[in-house]
């Protein structure tokens, strides 16, 4: 249907309602600046379903026979986040060089790390790569769990095949050492792939804490910004309950727990912040 495959424009009231639906399903609060993004990412889906307006699609999400499945598809399309290897590396360096050696020194035999919104997998694989570079896997048992609400990105992450764009923050030697290039695609080595366990997980689900279990370190970067204050507080509280003592929480550079939680001790390690459960 080439003749009509353009982007379908979303009207103001349709956008406001779609934002509301997305928020109720995933607690992600889309900014008004995302209108264009929504049009771009959902137009193809509307064409596939033979819809000509976003109103048709909204009614399909509310009244269609497969509405639950469609809500999942829509959330996947809208929530995919762009990331890259070794993004905000300072925090990972702090974990590898300061936090983990302390834990090992204190006699900890098993360490669990959670990448709580892993998107297409660059973050948890980066952690695994840095742990490998530092020889940590020879010193203790480390398990990396990675989750994301978006089932498609989790499948993508499991495959571990990336484009050049994912290496903006990585040194060339890392790319060469841990990835195999085929044309313009780079596949992560099995050595790193086996270190990460991926699952779908919604941070606002009341049972996610129970399913995931206790962790020593949690990375949840550039995700809280999408939630409203009440949801942020619930998610942060869940993190607190799911951390061992001591437990470490790393957030994005522009994120803070101010007015969300007073339980964590905030430590400035020079090039970033970490939040500690003591």
């Amino acid at each position, binding site marked *: 249907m080439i003749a009509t495959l353009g982007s379908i424009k979303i009207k103001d009231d349709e956008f406001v309602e779609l934002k509301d639906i997305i928020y109720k399903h995933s607690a992600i609060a889309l900014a008004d600046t995302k209108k264009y993004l929504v049009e771009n990412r959902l137009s193809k889906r509307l064409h596939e379903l033979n819809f000509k307006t976003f109103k048709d699609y909204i009614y399909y999400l*509310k009244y269609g026979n497969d509405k639950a499945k469609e809500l999942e598809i829509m959330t996947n399309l809208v929530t995919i986040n762009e990331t890259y290897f070794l993004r905000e590396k300072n925090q990972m360096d702090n974990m590898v060089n300061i936090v983990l050696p302390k834990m090992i020194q204190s006699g900890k035999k098993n360490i669990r790390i959670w990448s709580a919104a892993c998107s297409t997998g660059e973050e948890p694989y980066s952690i695994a790569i840095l742990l490998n570079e530092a020889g940590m896997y020879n010193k203790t048992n480390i398990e990396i769990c990675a989750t994301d609400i978006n089932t498609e990105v989790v499948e993508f992450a499991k495959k571990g095949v990336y484009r050049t764009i994912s290496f903006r923050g990585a040194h060339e030697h890392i790319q060469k050492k841990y990835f195999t290039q085929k044309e313009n695609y780079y596949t992560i080595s099995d050595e790193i792939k086996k270190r990460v366990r991926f699952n779908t997980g919604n941070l606002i689900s009341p049972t996610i804490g129970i399913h995931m279990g206790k962790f020593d370190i949690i990375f949840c970067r550039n995700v809280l910004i999408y939630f409203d204050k009440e949801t942020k507080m619930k998610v942060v509280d869940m993190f607190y309950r799911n951390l061992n003592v001591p437990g470490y929480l790393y957030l994005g550079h*522009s994120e803070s727990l101010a007015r969300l939680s007073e339980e964590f001790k905030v430590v400035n390690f020079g090039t970033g912040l970490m939040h500690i459960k003591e």
Partner: protein
Amino acid sequence: MINYLKESKKIYAVLDEELCEEDTKQLQTIISSNGVEIINIDLKNISYIEARTIENILSLKNIADSKHIKLNLLNASESIYDILESSFTGIRFIQDFSTYSEEELLGLLNDPEREDEVINYMVDNYEAHKANIVNNAKQGDAYVRAQCILIIGKAHDISEIETVRAALQSGYPQIVHNALLVLGWFFDSESKHSFYHYLQSENSSIAKAAAASISLIADESDVERLTGMSTSSSPMLRGIVASALALINGDEAYKTVKNMLLVERDEHIIPVLIRQLSFFNNEEAVDIIVSYLDHPSTSIQETAASSLERTGLKNKLDTVVAKIINNDSLVSYFAVKAIGKDCNKDTAELLISIYTKVHENVKLAILGTLGIANVNNTEFFKQCLEDANEDIRKEALASMYSTDSVSGLIAAKERVIKDSSWLVRYKALQILELDGADRHTPLLQEIARTDSSINIREKAYELVGKSL
């Protein structure tokens, strides 16, 4: 640390990591000098923001406000924007790519959320960036190369046709796809043989791009050639050929697509062919498409019904209306929408008579269709305004206003206050906006202050914000 540039009555200040006290004082001194009208603070280098930087921007804003100087924040990243948006009111956030270097702009082509904006900017300022664009279209990183080819095409720089032709040899699908599209935009008949080669690509995006480009340069011989390919054993190619023919259009192309549909047995391709047939303005096509409303496959019925929305029903109105009650709800939904402007008084009465017997989404389609019919159904809409379903009330309100603006406006003024659903109140606000927000200022001001929904308060504020 800041770098700043004074340009006539404008100040550009590019922040690097943070805005310290010293920098703030320096900027305060500069903007205090006579003649400054605008200060632009560029945040493109800021990946995170500290509280003291926010405080310092705020103090600058206060000074700017007192001197009636506009303060704009440029190029805030999404996370910074989220933080600053909640800290400031009355400040403008602007995306200004002119402050980016060539290298930074090319880097942004890799950003999926911004690439379209950057492409449009580079097209608008093509001459200034041409050397870099062409260079990267020849030998850039694969993805950037593909984007630069697209920019050449959008700027219609036909002098670079050889650069684009060369890109057809790339092994990278996105590059080939973009090159095919651009050569079509350039009406490059010399590349027609390549278009036909790629029409048979196993990559459907490439094949569709080739079909689009063939249609742009097609003559009668192309319809003949495509007709020859229409019996291919490859189902995908049959679908692509039909797409190309629909784009070329005309009687001969119609005959081929019609014949393709009549003999097609693959249930994945039949919907593609039905859709393509609907792009021909032909009464016989409507008859054929309507016949697929009885197909055993629900998805084929749905495609047929939705395609009728494009063609209109012509002489098949009664046939389609008769199928609304006993069909799959999505088929019925599309069928009702297909009635559209053909809805006359008799059809409206028929739709109202079956209203209680159909699924909720079909009721919504009926209300929508009655809203564009030239028939007064105000009493029916009034009944629907009492429905428990908020979408029904919303559609009824919208359709009442479309067909009877006086009654619709009265209902909107009532609903905007008393309806329990923000969706209905939002629709009511839109009706007040259409009527002229300035005629309802006190009501809108009250809503902006007191409504329980943030969506409603924001919309009301948008309508009367300045007078609050």
